[in-house]
């Protein structure tokens, strides 16, 4: 029973951590679906959102604002920053690159990553800033079934809840609103969408804005977990295997991929790690992605890739 208790604890911890990966991966999927751009800057956007949230928040708290007001104002400020950066990226980076091939666009987002990372840290500072929006203590579940119970981090549960709300919200946005429908039209065919009167540059701005807001949500959770700091940008690299496994074009895929990666790497670390030296969390997700790529290149939920000359 002890062994099973431990396994359940590892598995639950991994699944919840996976939800947090999904939060970052969601931003990628949104942009990829709507504009065919693989947005490498998503991790940098999480950093920017986190810094734009935590710095004014700290400042206002130090000035004697009530905490709830500081949080609301801080979130509003961060949202404005994300909107501004969305507009700038659309206007100056992606706008001029319309109709270029995917690789060029991908490399331009690497450029954007560097601008955002440098700019965000230059404006807001480059230390580790602790953020405390959610409780970070632990729960012990099923204490009478298992000796010691199952340890679950409250923050991870919050992360899961938020991810659920976010996905539901995005689903409603895509299916029910006018803009959401326009987004799906653009994703299907740029030229056809344009010819029925959908303004493409506006739609792309909206996509980047939504991805920016998703980054803000991810920043609140990850910022609470790790503190807002530069290493948050590496989340973008962690989200890549999630996307490969789930498929680049699928919102549910991002969630399922995140769960698989999160649970897989925790279980592998605990049960496989001691055999081959530990620390395999570092690359496990990538190797998993590599295997999926070899077997099913479009991912579990992705659309089949068809090529023509």
């Amino acid at each position, binding site marked *: 029973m002890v062994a099973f208790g431990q396994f359940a604890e590892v598995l639950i911890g991994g699944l919840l951590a996976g939800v947090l990966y999904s939060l970052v991966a969601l931003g990628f999927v949104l942009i990829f679906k709507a504009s065919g751009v693989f947005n490498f800057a998503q991790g940098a956007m999480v950093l920017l959102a986190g810094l734009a949230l935590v710095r004014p928040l700290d400042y206002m708290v130090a000035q004697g604002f009530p905490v709830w007001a500081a949080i609301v104002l801080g979130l509003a400020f961060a949202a404005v920053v994300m909107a501004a950066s969305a507009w700038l990226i659309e206007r100056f980076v992606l706008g001029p690159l319309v109709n270029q091939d995917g690789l060029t666009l*991908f490399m331009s987002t690497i450029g954007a990553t560097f601008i955002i990372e*440098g700019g965000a840290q230059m404006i807001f500072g480059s230390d580790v800033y602790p953020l405390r929006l959610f409780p970070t203590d632990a729960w012990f579940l099923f204490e009478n079934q298992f000796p010691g119970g199952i340890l679950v981090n409250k923050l991870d549960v919050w992360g899961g809840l938020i991810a659920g709300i976010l996905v539901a919200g995005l689903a409603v946005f895509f299916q029910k609103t006018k803009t959401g429908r326009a987004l799906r039209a653009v994703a299907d065919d740029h030229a056809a969408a344009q010819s029925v009167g959908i303004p493409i540059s506006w739609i792309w701005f909206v996509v980047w804005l939504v991805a920016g807001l998703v980054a803000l949500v991810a920043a609140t959770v990850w910022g609470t977990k790790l503190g807002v700091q530069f290493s948050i940008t590496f989340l973008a690299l962690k989200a890549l295997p999630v996307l490969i496994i789930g498929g680049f074009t699928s919102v549910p895929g991002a969630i399922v991929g995140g769960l698989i990666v999160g649970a897989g790497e925790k279980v592998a670390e605990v049960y496989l790690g001691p055999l081959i030296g530990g620390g395999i969390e570092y690359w496990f997700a990538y190797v998993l*992605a*590599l295997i999926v790529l070899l077997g099913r290149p479009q991912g579990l939920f992705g659309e089949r890739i068809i090529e023509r000359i």
Partner: protein
Amino acid sequence: MLYREAGQFKSSYSADMAMFPIRQDRIALALLLVVAFFIVPFVASDYFLRAILVPFLILSLGAIGLNILVGYCGQISLGAGAFMAIGAYSTYKFTTGVHLPLDWFGTEISIPPLAVLPSILLGGFMAAIVGILFGIPSLRIKGLYLAVATLAAQFFFDWVFIRVKWFSNYTPSGSVAAPELNFFGLVVHSSIERYLLCLAFVTVFAFIAKNLVRGSLGRQWMAIRDMDIAAELMGIRPFYAKLTAFAVSSFMIGISGALWAFVYLGAWEPLAFDINRSFQLLFMVIIGGLGSILGSFLGAAFILILPIFLDQVPHALGIPISVETISHLVFIIQGSLICYLLIVEPHGFARLWAIAKEKLRLWPYPY
């Protein structure tokens, strides 16, 4: 006036396809080599040789290698740092002697310590072998998907060289010191000798690369890059073309990794070859020019010199800027330049150079 090819007639196909078909180019290159080999070592200061020219030459070699893969064959790679690390650690193992007990098979591999030069070449071969292995996914996937596969190589080998103590000969700190650089009795020690060593390597491999890309192999790579399905229908084997690109590219990157570790750093840790190194090389290739050997040099020079330049200029002007701000500025400027170049000149500095040459041909009497 000076740069005009009037009167240079080519009477055979091979003359037309020569490496440098224009006489002025050949003269300029010969002059450049003479200056680099015989004048620079005596003129340049110790700091300039050690801190700027040596890393520039080594990273140029890495950039040439990556350019073969990304620029000529169109297979994007984010794992260049891993292949540099493989080159460096394999060379280290070959110079200190390989001893690998294979208890399961009841045997063992034991190779006595080798000299430095064969070790470096073997290091390149090891990188090439691993490159082929990680290139196999490229037969099924491409573009961004392949980028993730190469990223897997990067993270996996970061981990391997940190965790598997065998590679660092069980040193407790995990950092490794290169043995003496003995080339057939000549010990490379001073900055000038290090510089000449790197220069010799880079010259040889740059010529090999330049020759490869204009030959059959290079044209196969470019056909695959431009449209792989069409190339396949024309009778080019993607299997052969892609894997040779991976092998040649990884070989050169591996050699540059070995040089980076042995000649430039001297003692190193796995962190010297992390993901940032991969990005650095990729940026050199993009900024310099995808699909250009010259561009690899230009990109390497630019990416290396930009931080030094930004470090020196505010000092010279008397504007106080903190080290932190400079490092952020470097990020911003690099990023902006990448975006700008992708928008304005997707072929990088090499293309600007080509345009300048076109202008020079008509100078001083443009039509």
